[in-house]
């Protein structure tokens, strides 16, 4: 492959893997509750902050599992406190509640950090520098996609072969009927949030090891992008979300480098600032998908009843 483009692709795959881990949480929650959990990106950020504070006080071997446990607990609590009481309320109310939680988490983080950038602790080994295909990068960049795929395979196995997985699939197909069939909806939803936040916690470790600065708004953009990835892949579909995330990660990285790529190719002679659109591109992709194929790449068709 072209030596110019390779670094962008590798960096894109790595970011994509991190988005994928967040996107799964979105897609699972949306599949079951039909709720865009706006707070999911902020849970991801809080997980990063927890690591910052815990790693300062405890050895990493204790801090890492503790961060995961606390993040999962946070996700579980948010569902209990902010979404469960609104189960029968209109969808708009639940979405507003999600926006409210996101606002609260960001402000809380602002208060605790004093609004300052917190440096993410270096996790040994994975943050070391390695040389791949003649290119210098950190080990986490290389590990991320593999770890993501392993986790996704485990998750798919869980969903297809365990009782709770079956219950999840049933609930996402039809909420009311599953309830009538004796599925305990609340525990299924809790399980969904637990799995989603667990993956977000892992994603946050990889992400912040790669980009070691945590601020209160760190979660907002990755969160939105992960949601777009979930929509792109077809909401409710886990492989779809993962593929969507990788595509978005790679495109984003390529767009940031597009000026340079074109200059090196000789297509253009001076910078035209296309990198400005690296975030906006994600949304262009979203709108194209929503307008032309609202069910996403792998989404199932739904029929509306009058």
């Amino acid at each position, binding site marked *: 492959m072209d030596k110019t483009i390779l670094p962008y692709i590798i960096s894109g795959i790595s970011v994509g893997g991190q988005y994928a881990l967040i996107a799964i949480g979105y897609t699972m929650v949306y599949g079951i509750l039909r709720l865009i959990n706006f707070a999911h990106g902020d849970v991801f950020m809080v997980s990063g902050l927890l690591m910052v504070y815990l790693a300062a006080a405890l050895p990493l071997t204790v801090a890492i599992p503790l961060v995961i446990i606390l993040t999962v607990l946070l996700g579980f609590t948010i569902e209990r406190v*902010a979404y469960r009481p609104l189960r029968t309320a209109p969808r708009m109310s639940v979405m507003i509640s999600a926006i409210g939680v996101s606002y609260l988490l960001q402000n809380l983080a602002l208060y605790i950090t004093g609004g300052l950038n917190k440096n993410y602790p270096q996790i040994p080994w994975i943050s070391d520098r390695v040389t791949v295909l003649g290119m210098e990068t950190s080990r986490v960049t290389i590990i991320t996609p593999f770890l993501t795929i392993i986790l996704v395979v485990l998750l798919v196995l869980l969903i297809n072969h365990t009782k709770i997985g079956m219950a999840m699939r049933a609930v996402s197909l039809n909420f009311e009927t599953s309830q009538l069939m004796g599925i305990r909806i609340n525990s299924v939803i809790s399980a969904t949030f637990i799995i989603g936040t667990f993956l977000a916690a892992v994603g946050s470790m990889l992400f912040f090891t790669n980009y070691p600065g945590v601020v209160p708004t760190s979660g907002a953009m990755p969160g939105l992008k992960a949601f777009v990835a979930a*929509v792109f892949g077809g909401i409710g579909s886990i492989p779809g979300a993962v593929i969507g995330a990788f595509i978005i990660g790679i495109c984003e990285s390529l767009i940031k480098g597009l000026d340079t790529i074109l200059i090196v190719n000789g297509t253009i002679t001076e910078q035209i600032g296309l990198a400005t659109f690296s975030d906006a591109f994600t949304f262009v992709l979203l709108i194209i998908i929503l307008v032309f194929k609202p069910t996403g790449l792998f989404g199932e068709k739904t029929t509306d009843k009058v």
Partner: protein
Amino acid sequence: MKAVKTPEESRLISWISFFAVLIFLGLVLLLDQLIKPTSSVYMLMTVLQKGSVYALAAVSMNLLNGYTGLFSLGHAGFMLIGAYTYAIFTIPSTSRDTVYQYFDAVVRFSFPETFSNAMGPVGTALGVLVAVILAGLLAAVFAYLIGLPVLRLKSDYLAIATLGFAEIIRAICQWQKLGPITNGSNLLKSFARTSKFKVAVGGLKLTLSTFVPVLIATVSIIIIVKLINSTYGRAFKAIRDDEIAAEAMGINLARHKMISFTVSSFFAGVAGAMMAMVLSIAQASNFKSAMTYEILLMVVLGGIGSTSGSVIGSFLFVAASEWWLRGLDSGSFLGIEAPNIFRNGFRLVVFSIIIMIVVLFFRQGIMGEREISDLIILRRRKRKAGKEAAK
């Protein structure tokens, strides 16, 4: 409860509102003369200025989210268009080159200047007005174009698509290649702003820094209220309550949703222009989705589907965050000294907790779907009934 008014009561309410608005405007004009920027209660004026910007933004969002039932999160984008349009067309020619310090500005005229050359001081005011209206119109045009593909989407997909468009608008405004128009991602300033709104009427110098934004917001909100009470407003509510029934009763969904979306965006654009003139700067990076969320929370605080609620909600929001709760950030609040707890950011934490409580336990907000007029009428009826019972 909403009160169904008799014709007599409606007339009464129109008179009351007419005088209330008149008195309010007069009071603002008076305060504008009395309270100088160095005064310790000038925060009141800041709250009035910013509050009126957010009130208009919230009311226009409520028109869409509360009355038409379209959950859109693109407000910040339309406000951005409004702010930029207003700013670009009111920068005086002498300041243009310093504002566009890295670019060759393309737009080389300013409405207030052009008009004042032709008509004197009245022209300046007219120029500002034209720029504000142009700001709204441009936002409406963008809304129309965006509405074509996205308005067919359902609830949360609509929300996320409009959010996306707002981000795209922001990126476009920040693009270096558009620098000659938008000044790239840099600050726009030196345009006509409230701190410069002063007139001399026959030797009497009047300050209009707060009066102008309050006036624009009041007029705009009155127009929105009139729209809501018109046959179109009723059609919007029908769409909100039951889209299928509305369509079956001959209401063209696509057309009416588009009307609501463009009108809402028009006033969002006006609010954006006001935001620029109040802050005296305009910069794309300020119009993030967080701004939309804040406006949404104001609407929720006031009660979705209540215009007076949105106005109250936004003034409360602004006053609490800019003024009353400031002590929470700076060490002492209500006489309690606790610098370790009351430090930077605590105000926002308290604030978000209050909002979560409203969202979870007082879902109706302050006003529910009622208006102030409903409260007045109900009160009046109660009093009348009481009097009759006493007889």
